[in-house]
């Protein structure tokens, strides 16, 4: 085997390991249906993949065939995807204990989706982009509708599937148009073609459709309509994965597109994107205001957060890549914290026929007086989502505002401020609900031993990390700026 092939194999080994784990888990299920065993095998596989990823870091950028590239950015993305998948595994184990149907297949789906995420962050060709997105989405349909006897979960799965299919159609059509005009599907070559004949209407239409497809996955307004329903209905661990790993992977591929291909040289592209960013932040925040359902609220809040993230893409120079990196790290941590608590409170699964999870806000009323540490996690997550100092979320918001100020994009910065001010209202509402005490309310509780379980420990660790990174963000900033700089 040649040296280059060896290097490529080593660079791509995390993906290979995750795929191997899929097969191992499948065989293990065939051998014996042992829920805990399968969860452990999954977690071990993910950890080995993570180790391989860290050891592979010293290799530097490696081209794995002409369609995949493993560089610092893709490794960064892979770390986030694997970490969030790990958190989902631990949460899922706790959650599924109460599920009476087959439990083990959930891990198969989860691992496959993670593999899709890994492909996506390394994609530098339209084929891998498409392959990654589909591999990421297909298992998600199954995960979202996993507890299919509940109407909410089934609805959420089907909704996501149907709308995803529409988005895929856009994506494919866009690619086809791009190919028809330029004759290539490679990001870098497409970029050259765009800079030469940027105003060709077919080319623009193709790029536009491509963006629509990706915007759907990121639930950017006006392609956000699926988000609240899917978030609300899906089982906790599946929604957690959707909100973290899936979005991170898609956003990173979008970033890569912007860096190499669609570095649209026309100003109006940027202005259009800026308008979309503003609308996304405002709509996400405004629609979240009146929600009485925590998971829906988090869905709308994620829309707003991707609106903030778009600011970095609009600017696309200076601190932009670093901003995306820092913001994604803080976003993933915070979202894991928030959804982790929701999942823990909803664990173990209890069939209700409707929406199984503890998602109505009044379930959380007075949680502090029953589960103080769990509430502390939720409070920290809410503060971090709102971007309050001494939480990781503030560092993310600081970067977003900094990148906007640096590029003198005052309208964008202004909208971030307005969006945050609106956002505060509902984050505070959630927070204060946790502390109110009204006896006689309908309650839902985490189990007494939640903190001793893997899921509980993960959630506590996440909250600690949010605080630590808020107090001393230097390690994270150094890491991300190194990733962005190289």
């Amino acid at each position, binding site marked *: 085997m040649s040296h280059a092939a060896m290097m490529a194999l080593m660079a791509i080994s995390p993906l290979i390991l995750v795929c191997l784990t899929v097969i191992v888990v499948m065989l293990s299920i065939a051998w014996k249906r042992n829920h805990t065993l399968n969860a452990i095998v999954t977690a071990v596989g993910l950890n080995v993949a993570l180790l391989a990823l860290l050891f592979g870091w010293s290799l530097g950028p490696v081209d794995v065939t002409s369609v995949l590239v493993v560089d610092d950015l893709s490794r960064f993305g892979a770390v986030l995807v694997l970490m969030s998948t790990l958190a989902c595994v631990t949460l899922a184990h706790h959650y599924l204990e109460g599920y009476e149907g087959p439990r083990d297949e959930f891990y198969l789906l989860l691992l496959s989706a993670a593999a899709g995420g890994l492909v996506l962050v390394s994609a530098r060709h339209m084929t891998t982009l498409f392959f990654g997105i589909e591999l990421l989405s297909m298992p998600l349909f199954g995960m979202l509708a996993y507890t299919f006897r509940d109407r909410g979960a089934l609805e959420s799965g089907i909704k996501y599937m149907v709308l995803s299919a529409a988005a895929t159609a856009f994506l494919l059509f866009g690619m086809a148009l791009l190919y028809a005009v330029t004759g290539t599907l490679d990001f870098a070559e497409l970029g050259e073609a765009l800079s030469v004949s940027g105003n060709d209407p077919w080319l623009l239409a193709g790029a536009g459709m491509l963006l629509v497809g990706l915007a759907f996955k990121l639930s950017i307004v006006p392609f956000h309509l699926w988000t609240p329903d899917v978030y609300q209905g899906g089982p906790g661990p599946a929604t957690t994965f959707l909100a973290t790993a899936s979005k991170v992977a898609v956003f990173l591929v979008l970033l890569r597109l912007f860096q190499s291909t669609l570095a649209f040289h026309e100003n109006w592209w940027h202005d259009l994107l800026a308008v979309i960013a503003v609308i996304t932040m405002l709509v996400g925040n405004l629609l979240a205001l009146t929600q009485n359902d925590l998971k829906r609220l988090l869905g709308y809040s994620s829309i707003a957060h991707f609106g903030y993230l778009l600011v970095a893409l609009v600017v696309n120079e200076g601190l932009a890549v670093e901003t995306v990196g820092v913001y994604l790290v803080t976003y993933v941590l915070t979202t894991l914290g928030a959804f982790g608590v929701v999942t823990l409170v909803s664990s173990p699964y209890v069939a209700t026929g409707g929406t199984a999870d503890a998602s109505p806000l009044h379930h959380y009323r007075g949680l502090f007086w029953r589960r103080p540490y769990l509430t502390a996690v939720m409070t920290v997550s809410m*503060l971090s989502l709102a971007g309050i*100092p001494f939480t990781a979320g503030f560092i993310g918001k600081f970067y977003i505002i900094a990148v906007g100020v640096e590029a003198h994009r005052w309208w964008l910065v202004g909208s971030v401020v307005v969006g945050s001010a609106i956002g505060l209202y509902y984050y*505070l509402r959630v927070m*204060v609900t946790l502390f109110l005490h009204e006896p006689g309310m309908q309650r839902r509780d985490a189990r007494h031993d939640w903190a001793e379980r893997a899921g509980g420990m993960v959630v506590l660790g996440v909250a600690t990390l949010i605080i630590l990174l808020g107090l001393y963000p230097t390690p994270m900033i150094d890491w991300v700026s190194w990733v962005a700089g190289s």
Partner: protein
Amino acid sequence: MTLVWLILIPFIGGLLCWQAERFGDRAPRWIALGTMLLELVMVLGLWVSSDFSLPAQGATNAWTLEWQADWIPRFGIQVHLAIDGLSLLMIALTGLLGAMAVVCSWKEIVRRVGFFHLNLLWILGGVVGVFLAIDLFLFFLFWEMMLVPMYFLIALWGHSGSQGSSRIGAATKFFIYTQASGLLMLIAILGLVFAHHAATGDYTFAYADLLNTPLSETTAWWLMLGFFVAFAVKLPVVPLHGWLPDAHAQAPTAGSVDLAGILLKTAAYGMLRFALPLFPEASQAFAPVAMTLGLIGIFYGAILACGQRDLKRLIAYTSISHMGFVLIGIYAGTELALQGVVALMVAHAFSAAGLFILSGQLYERLHTRDMRQMGGLWGRIRGLPGFALVFVAASLGLPGTANFVGEFMVMFGAFGVAPWVVVIASAGLILAAVYSLFIMQRVYYGPPAEETPLAGLDRRETVLLFGIVALVVFFGIYPQPLLDTSAGAMQVVQHSVQQAGAMMGGSQ
């Protein structure tokens, strides 16, 4: 390290209080009181042991103590703390009022005592951080961070409003107002940092470095506005004051004491420390607007105070009126006026805290703050009305109280710069007398609603009130220690204002 400990002590004390709740209700109270007294003793020790009469050389700050450590080297952000006369006075005030807040909620707060004191102490820790930080990033962090425990304080232990407005609504309003305006300040800070980066190629958030950033006139103007709006919301300046009456009306007594006594002062401190020295020319140009806003505040606050039925809302509006004087003093920029501002801030902290504590005590006895249900209390409560008279007198600026010294110095100092503003402002003093007499008349005189006597002051309350009265009178008669301490810091501010004035005069 002393400075770091000054910040850490309240935070650690807060955590201890929270955990001490398992040993009963009394433990958190004593721990909180001990924490605040320790803080106070440390500051007073610092006060006694250092020399603040340092003549300020030029426009550079002469810090008495400084402490720094690298924090986020990527942007040149440091944990940089420093203390001078102004910050020392403010921290001493924080310690004192913090202890009072603990004492005055001794009987008022009966539920979740540990968590209450955690929030109370964390507010104070944040405030101390604001007064000590001279790295702009760190300053902003503390500025925003102290809102969270304040939010909880109002939302969880507040009273339901007299007109059915909810305490959670009030807390949310307070939070959104201050947080949103704080983000404007963050934008201004970042604008300043990037301007400095463009000029020198270095990222830095250090106060001393940013002081000399070359800025174009329009940039400086916008950045100054960013800072001003953030401080104006907190002070509050009139069009941005909407959160204050609600927050005060719903907050528990300790919350009101902190809010009026210390939190409002962080805004004035911010103007003195950051807004004026960082943008002297722009501030100079903005001064007429600011003074006009101050005037509007004086009259608006006083007139609305006259029409209130809720005792705490009334006191809240008088705060707006008093802060109008502070604003005029700050933007007058003469040394006398600036010194007056310091004296007035200290005096107002005492008188407002006294009035809020009294209204809290009335509430404990009458279970209402509606003044229509009061009246004739002079004969029904032993001791309390007498103290009320003293604080009301202080609030209207009667000679012999510290408030008189402050207001007088502000007006005297501002007269040379803006005579008409002073003339109009002094008419506001008459309104002050009107609302002060309203308080006395409606609450303590007139026909009593009932004849049954109410519980008199117990020892805790008496000692607390006597302490405040003593301070009000002491600084009214002998304000020199205050003025000596802050002289150096105020000279620096005055110097930068003067320089800007000279430059603008030269360019015209």
